[in-house]
């Protein structure tokens, strides 16, 4: 299949209702951090962009939202033209300009503080990171608390960024500035908004 066909095919079959379903899953995940929201497959993006991450991008991004792609995605011309065709989102020159960042290999990603953190006046002007992870059970368990969580929640996302717990603590300390994370596996999503605190597990 040539690059043009790959760039055009695999978008939402029913853009209005697919986008609504994906958004509601993201909204519920953001409102209940650490709780898995199942998401059926809506898109068939070219690799290494996953179907879930692709669906989130299609539901939320458009020509108002500069996108930043991590090196693995950046290397694929097909991914760039697929996102360009379906969302119209421009690519951000630097991570600090991005409204959304798509990360295919979180374990190798740059530090969280390299992305836009928003300002003290406008903390909403920050980057939302969409991390592709293989699952939410096989990594180091994270005990979560904060708004949206009744007592505590636990997820164990695989292939998380290096020193993630320490980085996330710093992200918490920047509140109200900071980044928000959407974790995307092949069949579900979970979110870590900047208000969520990771409690260190007692050994």
């Amino acid at each position: 299949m040539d690059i043009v066909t790959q760039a055009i095919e695999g978008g939402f079959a029913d853009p209005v209702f697919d986008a609504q379903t994906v958004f509601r899953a993201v909204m519920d995940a953001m409102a209940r951090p650490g709780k898995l929201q199942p998401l059926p497959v809506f898109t068939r993006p070219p690799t290494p962009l996953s179907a879930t991450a692709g669906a989130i991008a299609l539901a939320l991004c458009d020509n108002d939202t500069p996108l930043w792609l991590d090196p693995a995605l950046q290397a694929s011309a097909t991914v760039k033209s697929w996102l360009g065709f379906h969302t119209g989102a421009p690519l951000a020159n630097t991570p600090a300009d991005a409204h959304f960042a798509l990360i295919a290999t979180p374990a190798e990603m740059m530090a969280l503080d390299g992305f836009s953190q928003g300002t003290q006046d406008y903390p909403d002007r920050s980057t939302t990171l969409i991390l592709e992870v293989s699952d939410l059970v096989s990594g180091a368990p994270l005990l979560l608390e904060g708004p949206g969580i009744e007592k505590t929640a636990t997820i164990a996302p695989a292939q998380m960024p290096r020193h993630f717990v320490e980085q996330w603590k710093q992200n918490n300390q920047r509140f109200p500035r900071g980044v928000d994370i959407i974790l995307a596996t092949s069949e579900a999503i979970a979110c870590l908004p900047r208000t969520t605190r990771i409690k260190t597990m007692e050994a």
Partner: protein
Amino acid sequence: MTAQPTDIATYNFAYLDEQTKRMIRRAILKGIAIPGYQVPFASREMPMPYGWGTGGVQVTASIIGPDDVLKVIDQGADDTTNAVSIRAFFKKVANVAVTTETAKATIIQTRHRIPEHPLSAGQVLVYQVPIPEPLRFLEPRETETRKMHALEEYGLIHVKLYEDIAKHGRIATTYAYPVKVEGRYVMDPSPTPKFDNPKMHRSPALQLFGAGREKRIYALPPFTDVVSLDFEDHPFEVQTFDQPCALCAAENVYLDEVILDDHGGHMFVCSDTDHCEKRREQGHRGHLAPEIPLALEKTEPAQ
């Protein structure tokens, strides 16, 4: 679901175009991530005037799907002009099921009340907000109030409450009573009576606030600390009523005064009509309840 060959085909689903929905959806996500912070958004003209709930309508239109069940209340009532119009609007442009029963709704759009029936985890409460900025009547400049929020400089609002005490001997603010969210942002809970403030604290439902004219969206995720501002020697108190509802005899609910004649006759009835009807169906009767039992259609399915 494919579009029905009806008159809704001339509109996009839920009235707004997809780019507008994406913009509002992004604002909602930021609002949830920063509880109590007012996210600016590009509010659209809606087919109703500002002040009639255009903010709430835009939020509802951006989150609603074909499987949702919508309830709309205006000061607690399902049967007032605003509530009926907005319900009819979404029945037409989104073809969703509508209900008046709090427990059956997945999305409840509200003007100035929180239902008496406790909300549950799957529900979303959408508030229509006229003035989202709690500091606006103390400081008219947006540049200044934004700085005050940024620096967490909320002394002024405590002075306002203190002046109430100095003048009236108690905090006389009865609605739009300011709250502090997760110990950080001071937020206007919209002009709900302060009676409803405790219901916002650690509610299992997601609460979204839309201000159309003022172009702001803010949110409270479930289980978020929402504390009404007060003083140690003047703790926050809600309104109390010295008589029960005249129709359903409910106590500890918010009551409206209804004038009955021009000789000073009046009665106090539940502001939440659904709650009142439910209680009367269960056989509770106040001293002015009519003899004829109610027979109301509560839920209309999608066409």
